[in-house]
């Protein structure tokens, strides 16, 4: 059964230096509040997993939390590149960053395999691509029936997966909807799963066959309304596109980045204060 700790308690209990963690979300429902808490608690040597690393992973990389990133597309959606990611890869700042690259399809297969208790997943992929040359966790196998060459990718089972969802009930059953990405697979692939939610309600009132994580598959549920800002939560709030656009300038230099992180994230007591400090700054 899920616990209901505060976010800082939950991160302290679940996320340790050296862990492999996945904070999933495909544009929608990105667990920013949880990611900021990891940065503030100063975790180190993390392996971070995500199909579409964006601002949050850029922040974690720039703050030196990350040893390795497993990913498919690391950019600022609709805006451009991730400068802290690039600086780490191209110049080793703040330290060298190891990477393991897949495609969206292959990484979702790897997480699905992880959720399914399989050691690998298979797909029609990577034929003719250079990616397998640089990732030993992509291999080719031959179908014993058709003789087809298929790509096999090693299953991924994070120590901790963190997602943001619309609702949990008081037992800790979690409901999410809209663009659900690979969150369910990611949650089920992990040893422990932490979910931040907009609301805790008496009854989920879930439609039949909805995307639900039963309470007993979730380690901790934290009530963090607004916790996906500046991404969005379907039926709750829209994406703050301005924040994504502004990130480009903020993150371009090490100095502006470090100062912004210090001012807005490190000094804020919690995520609510972080958002307030941004508003204050923008007016």
């Amino acid at each position: 059964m899920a616990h209901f700790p505060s976010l800082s308690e939950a991160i302290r209990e679940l996320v340790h230096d050296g862990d492999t963690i996945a904070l999933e979300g495909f544009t929608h429902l990105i667990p920013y509040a949880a990611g900021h808490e990891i940065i503030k608690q100063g975790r180190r040597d993390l392996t971070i997993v995500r199909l579409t690393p964006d601002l949050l992973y850029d922040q974690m990389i720039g703050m030196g939390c990350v040893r390795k990133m497993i990913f498919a597309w690391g950019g600022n959606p609709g805006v451009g590149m991730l400068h802290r990611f690039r600086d780490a890869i191209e110049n080793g700042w703040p330290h060298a960053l190891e990477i393991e690259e897949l495609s969206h399809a292959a990484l979702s297969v790897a997480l699905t395999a992880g959720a399914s208790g399989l050691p690998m997943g298979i797909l029609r992929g990577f034929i003719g691509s250079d990616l397998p040359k640089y990732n030993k966790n992509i291999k080719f196998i031959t179908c014993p029936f058709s003789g087809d060459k298929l790509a096999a990718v090693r299953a991924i089972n994070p120590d901790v997966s963190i997602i943001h969802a619309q609702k949990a009930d008081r037992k800790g059953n979690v409901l999410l909807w809209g663009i659900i990405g690979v969150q369910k697979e990611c949650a089920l692939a992990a040893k422990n799963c932490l979910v931040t939610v907009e609301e805790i309600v008496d009854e989920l009132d879930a439609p039949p066959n909805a995307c639900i994580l039963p309470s007993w598959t979730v380690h901790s549920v934290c009530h963090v309304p607004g916790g996906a800002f500046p991404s969005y939560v379907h039926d709750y709030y829209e994406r703050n596109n301005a924040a994504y656009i502004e990130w480009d300038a903020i993150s371009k230099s090490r100095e502006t980045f470090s100062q912004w992180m210090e001012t807005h994230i490190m000094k804020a007591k919690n995520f609510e204060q972080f958002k307030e400090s941004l508003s204050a700054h923008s007016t």
Partner: protein
Amino acid sequence: MPVSNTVDFMTIVAARRLRNHCTCFVGIGIPSKAANLARLTHAPDIVLIYESGPIGTKPDVLPLSIGDGVLAETADTVVSTPEIFSYWLQGGRVDVGFLGAAQIDKFANLNSTVIGDYNSPKVRLPGAGGAPEIAALAKETLIIIPHEKRKLVERVDFITSAGYLDGGDAREKAGLKGGPSMVITDLGVLVPEEETKELVVQQLYPGVSRDEIKEATGWDLRFAEEVSETEPPTETEINALNQLLERTRIAREKQQNVLR
């Protein structure tokens, strides 16, 4: 009424290529613009699929990102990311895949990974995303890329997504079907030559010369036997696109006001 810029021209040329009822796997940027322009003009029943999960989406305005709420709200259904790639793309249900890239070579191989050496890159690009499987599994792919010498190169630094590999029957021999059918740039349209699979010029935009397009290309660019001048945008196309862009601008402004 002239088109406002070459991006609009590329959008319109790409949109024309999309048949009604076809299933189109769409990325953000020009692909999304073109696919929605097609839907709002000659292809009202086109099925748009975004890799974040929405199927049959009919947005009134252009999404800024691939996972925007407007895509989910107007879709026939929204599935998970594993499902979109397995049941829908790999399942053979995508007629046209749209791709961009940082580099393309003369056999239409695409690079969206690194400029320079993989282990110590000059420029680290965002990476593959959904491109390798779209390139491998869509029945055909359309590629959109600005026409610059450093982008259209003899040999890409890194093959993220397979085009025709070394040309000829190399792609087929590797076990891949489909392949790039058209490369739309801001100077013209290239297509793979029947036998060699080398990209050759099939269309030039009005006012673009053969020398100009050759000069902007990183390999010794050749021309198809018949090179046509691209039809200028029609008033219908221009109006539909301008209205779409205007609706998008208003929606984004409204959104920002809500948020701050």
